[in-house]
């Protein structure tokens, strides 16, 4: 609040991405958030600049304030101290009605109008790589008032046109979304391993807004499958603050989401004890963190 932010010196790329996603949320907003890094990012937002952010998830819970390691959008943890536990269809219905200001999703492929493929690479009926399918991503893309996307920056993932259109971005650009009858506002930003992208107000074509520290626009262009437009004065992504990184390391202390922590926890002999220990430590640390933040 007027104070100069203290940036972290030491952070990982995933932490940079999560911090950038966290900045897509605003205080007092309602957010519909999917599993994994987006959920960590939403919690980071809530524990920093957006204390009154409300997180709703697909399982049916609204107002998450869990003080344990979050393992899923529908795990026992997410019920803890929630405002409401109800049905999946009501939460999606609330989104379709317009109650959710912002959503965050991922995908396997994205195209220049922000359409996402979360289903299959190659031929849909005989895919070279099959992925999970829409889940709630199509619904968030259809109905959230705006949404942001988290992606790996690779040429085969940034394509002229997605192999299978799972989640509506701006479809063919312009007012195609509105003509299709979609109620939500469409994609607002794309945060990748290399930069931040936005969409042209009129054409709805994706353009590069910012590069992550150390990345050039040329490098990004090499990893995009169409002739990418660049903002006139392309900026540099704001690094994570010290506080953001600190909080991420409390939320995900062993890098389950943001690092390689799954390996240790999956160990056949020691994994279970380690998990029990993580739960306890995480509970203590997060309880302290929430108390400190008055949440």
């Amino acid at each position, binding site marked *: 609040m007027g104070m100069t932010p203290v940036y972290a010196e030491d952070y990982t790329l995933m932490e940079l991405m999560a911090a950038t996603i966290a900045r897509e949320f605003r205080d007092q907003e309602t957010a519909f958030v999917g*599993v*994994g890094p987006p959920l960590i990012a939403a919690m980071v937002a809530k524990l920093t600049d957006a204390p009154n952010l409300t997180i709703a998830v*697909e*399982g*049916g*819970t609204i107002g998450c304030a869990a*003080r344990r390691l979050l*393992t*899923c959008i*529908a*795990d*026992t*943890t*997410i*019920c*803890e*101290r929630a405002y409401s*536990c*109800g*049905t*999946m*269809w009501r939460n*999606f*219905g609330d989104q*379709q009605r317009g109650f959710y200001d912002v959503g965050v999703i991922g995908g396997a492929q994205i195209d220049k109008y922000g*359409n996402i493929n979360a*289903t299959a690479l190659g031929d*849909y009926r005989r*895919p070279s790589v*099959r*992925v999970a*399918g*829409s*889940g*709630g*991503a*199509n*619904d968030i893309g*259809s*109905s959230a008032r705006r949404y942001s996307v988290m992606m790996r920056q690779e040429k085969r993932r940034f394509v002229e046109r997605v192999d299978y*259109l*799972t*989640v*509506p971005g701006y*479809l063919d650009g312009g007012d*195609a*979304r509105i003509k*299709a*009858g979609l109620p939500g506002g469409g994609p607002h930003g794309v945060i990748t391993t290399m930069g931040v992208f936005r969409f042209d107000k009129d054409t709805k074509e994706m353009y590069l807004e910012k590069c992550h520290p150390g990345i050039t626009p040329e490098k990004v262009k090499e990893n995009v499958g169409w002739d990418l437009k660049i903002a006139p004065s392309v900026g540099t992504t704001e690094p994570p603050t010290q506080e953001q990184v600190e909080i991420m390391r409390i939320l995900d202390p062993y890098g*389950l989401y943001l690092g390689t922590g*799954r390996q240790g*926890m*999956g160990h056949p002999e020691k*994994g*279970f004890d380690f*998990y*029990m220990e993580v*739960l*306890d430590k995480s*509970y203590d640390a997060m309880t302290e963190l929430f108390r400190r933040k008055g949440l």
Partner: protein
Amino acid sequence: MEKLSKPPVNKVTTLKEAVSRFVHDGSYVSFGGIGDRTPTAAIHEVARQQKKNLRLVSDTSVTYVHDSILIGLGLVDTYEIAYNWGGIWGPDAVYRRALEKSIPKPIKIEEYSNFSIGMRFLAGSLGVPFMPVKSLLGTDIPVHNPHVKIMNDPYGGEPVALVPASHPDIAFIHVQRCDAIGNTQILGHLGNDDSLARAAQHVVITTEEIVPTDEIRRNPNLTFIPYYCVDAVVKVPFGSHGRGCPYYYSMDVPYGLQLAETWATEAGFNRWAEEWIFAVDDWEGYCRKIGWERLSRLAEAERRYQQYGEMR
């Protein structure tokens, strides 16, 4: 109109009996829950009884505890699905092998989104043939799934997608508590189980606890499934193991992480199924094999952090 209401009689039975009575080769089956409360014990029993040519419908299926077990065993012909993946446990090699390489056999996919599957169950629960949704519009989902129909809303004129009601022959739903006649209370997130129980022709409730009806009556607002939807009640403590059950036990994260390695190859998956499904008699055998100490530590972990009705 066929009689659909089930009588208010004692419905307590075993999982073996419930599966053999309600699941047949070719049945249209749905397993409820949403992440948590996955009816894993029921899925293992269906696998154990080798019910074939199944048609499954799910919103989200969480790999290692859910539909992929039946897909990997070649028991599924058709799959109506929004999302099949492992979440924190990682990708689903069984599902990928089935769809990319038809291993162990090809399956027919009908793709939806989580919300539109929810709307199919809601339509089913209400006895109407379809529900309108604003999802799916403009995408490839209706292109490949002819059951999604786009029409112009006769009121405002704008496009709207219709999805058909789903009426599974049999739904399995795992819950925290119900009484012997089937009045079912769910704590925490409900997923689509309130609709699914009404949409299905038959319902088997697997439950952590069976409580007296007077206990149900104390909190009538928590009874999300009335007894008249329910055909059978089976007490199955830890019936969602792998995933959690709110207020009863936590997710077993290491369990799925280990399975991710095992299932990575077809041989690994088959070995796992042999050892954990076919070589045990029932879910109690599975629990013994997992170890009661481990299970009770998962229960302890959950109780330390939350109990329903308390704030910590």
